[in-house]
């Protein structure tokens, strides 16, 4: 019998593909999405659908325009859309959400070559652009459904003003903030799923959250320390954005350095900066350092002899 397929070994491959990895991330984000709908109402779902649809559309459109292969089926654009949505306040005007999606996909991702080539996290960068461009809507926090308050001052603002915050509310997410960042519980569930599925390793989230906890503990004691890690976008950032493959180091030691760096910058901004929150800035700044961290922490070949 002739004409067999001839190829270089290996002749079997694992079942994991880019699509299955992105599908796992989408699944892991579901608890946070559900929590956002429960806490902030149906408009949260609308914002999420708009961002995902816009991101996928921009990816498809830009690739079509540039005659690049279509990559929307790898689901990475959908992941960017969902993460971006969860980073926005529920009352964000729809056109602004679409603009953010454009920045994320076209400017940050596709202009640098598409999946795997961008140096900065698309969702984070888009959020920062929006925070500066639309400062008002981006910091107008709706009150959570189960609170008595009319407007939802964010817990970080309250902590900054020296007010006390209920740790249980913080953990469950019944506080003001971006759609998907408030429920530490929901984000933690997603994070555990990703670690169990080996999509991410524990190194970055643990180093990031651990650093913030230790620094806050030193600054204001145990309750303050716990409140600082549950508040703001720390869990969302540490679990879902500081673990993005192409914009963070891939070695374990590099991930520890990346996480610790993110934690340090976050605390510097939270404790001494003008912004109440610093997670996004910290990740973006560490994204820029990633090539250097990767270089410093490159793995050493076994038995390698220096020439």
């Amino acid at each position, binding site marked *: *019998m002739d004409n*067999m397929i001839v190829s*270089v*070994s290996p002749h*079997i491959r694992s079942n994991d593909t880019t699509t299955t990895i992105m599908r796992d991330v989408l699944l892991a984000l579901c608890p946070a999405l559900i929590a956002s709908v429960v806490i902030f109402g149906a408009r949260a779902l609308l914002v999420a659908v708009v961002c995902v649809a816009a991101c996928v559309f921009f990816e498809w459109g830009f690739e079509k325009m540039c005659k690049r292969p279509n990559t929307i089926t*790898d689901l990475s654009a959908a992941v960017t859309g969902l993460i971006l949505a969860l980073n926005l306040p529920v009352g964000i005007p729809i056109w602004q959400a679409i603009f953010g999606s454009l920045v994320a996909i076209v400017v940050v991702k596709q202009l640098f070559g*598409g999946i795997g080539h961008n140096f900065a996290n698309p969702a984070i960068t888009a959020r920062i652009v929006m925070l500066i461009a639309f400062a008002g809507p981006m910091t107008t926090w709706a009150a959570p459904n189960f609170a008595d308050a009319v407007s939802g001052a964010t817990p970080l603002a309250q902590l900054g003003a020296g007010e006390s915050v209920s740790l249980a509310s913080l953990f469950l997410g019944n506080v003001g903030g971006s759609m998907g960042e408030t429920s530490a519980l929901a984000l933690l569930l997603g994070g555990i799923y990703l670690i169990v599925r080996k999509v991410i390793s524990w190194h970055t989230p643990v180093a990031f959250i651990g650093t913030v906890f230790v620094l806050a503990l030193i600054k204001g004691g145990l309750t303050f320390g716990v409140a600082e890690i549950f508040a703001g976008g720390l869990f969302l950032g540490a679990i879902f954005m500081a673990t993005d493959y192409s914009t963070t180091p891939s070695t374990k030691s590099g991930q520890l350095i990346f996480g610790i760096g993110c934690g340090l910058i976050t605390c510097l901004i939270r404790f001494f900066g003008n912004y109440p929150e610093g997670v996004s800035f910290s990740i973006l700044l560490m994204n820029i350092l990633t090539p250097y961290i990767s270089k410093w922490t490159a793995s050493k*070949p076994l038995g390698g*002899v220096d*020439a």
Partner: protein
Amino acid sequence: MSIKLLHGAHVPHRKNTADLAPKRMPAPAVVTVPMSMNIGAPAKPVVKPGDEVKVGQLIAEAGGFVSSPVYSGVSGKVKKIDEILLFHGGTCQAIVIESDGEQTPYEGIAAPTVTDLDSFIEAVRNSGVVGLGGAGFPTAVKLKVEPAKVDYICVNGAECEPYITADTRTMLDDSELLVDGIKLLQKYLQPGKVYIGIEDNKPNCISKLRDMTKDLKDVEVAALPALYPQGGEKVMIHNTTGRIVPEGGLPIDVGCVVINTSTLVTIARYVKTGMPLVEKYVTVDGSAIANPQNVIVPIGTSVKDVVDFCGGFRSEPKKIILGGPMMGVSVPNTDAPVVKNTGAILALDAKDAAPPVTTACIKCGRCVSHCPLNLMPAAIETAYQLKKPEVLKELKVNLCMECGCCSFVCPAKRPLVQVNKLAKGELNKYNAKLKAEAEKKAAKEAAKQEAAKQEAAKKEATV
């Protein structure tokens, strides 16, 4: 053991044939025995067309120091000596023998006299054995070491490739010969300790060999985790002894000798009976095979004859692999012969043979975190594409053993092993260029010095 194990990949096991004792197939009508079945020089035929041969008769002698003799696996008549195409594109001579179906053993078969290290190495050389785990390196060359240097001998029964159970069956069915082989190694190489490394997905092999070696001094059966590639030479050495073979070095440089179980059994059988390597345990499996099983195959038998013996194909095969799915070679047709280091014949159906769809690298780092040797395949791929041989040198692509972990785990299905192979070629060219340049420079320098000397001599003469 406190050794931090090397990285690896969780490949599927698919040891479907582990419980099936090998069945001896009847001699095929024709065998085609290639002269190039080992790393090193091909063997030189000592028979000519028309000669009668019997099972175990020498048909080709070693073609150099790094070479190995070849014996007939069938009785019959030499039909012709042909030129055949090898898998990698080269050609070599092959002896085609028409079998008479009798399988008459050669009357000159007699156990060799083994009294010391030299006669032992001579016996190993005459047994025709090469690294049967897949490498095909002449074993006699490997064992030609100073006994004083040997701290450890690792008997490699890892059999980490999916599907293959030929070594499993060797360990179970030929365990007495295996123990004989270990005793021979202990007697002549005098190692401090012998490890028998077996992946823990073969508990019956582990318990059987533990039981059989319990009275032997300094022999330990090491149950290794079933994490591919435990059977890689450097991996086996590291995960049993904790030692690391340095770049460009051999196992003996760190006091180790690694030998595959089937190789050792072949040696022990030759020393005991004088029967050289003439047949192989071959695992026949894969989605297109009707009845997966282990078969005892005369060397030189075509894939087609072996598969026919196993009841043919279940569905139309699209890919034929000699060896395991991680490191085996895919061949274009079923005429390919079983050679000395063929441990398996796998036939994959259209679904299993379909080439994967390659997408962009997403920098997930899985290729790095699964590489047993801590290489960075994605970085190597980039350096290769950018044509930067100096970076390839820094990344030590030359260390790559092509185990396939990186390609296996890559979610973007990038052909990383293929690129590593190509990158090694580029690096070799670059190193050769550097060497030539250095030599040229040295020659120039020497000429300059010579000229200066003559100038000085001239000056002196005129003064």
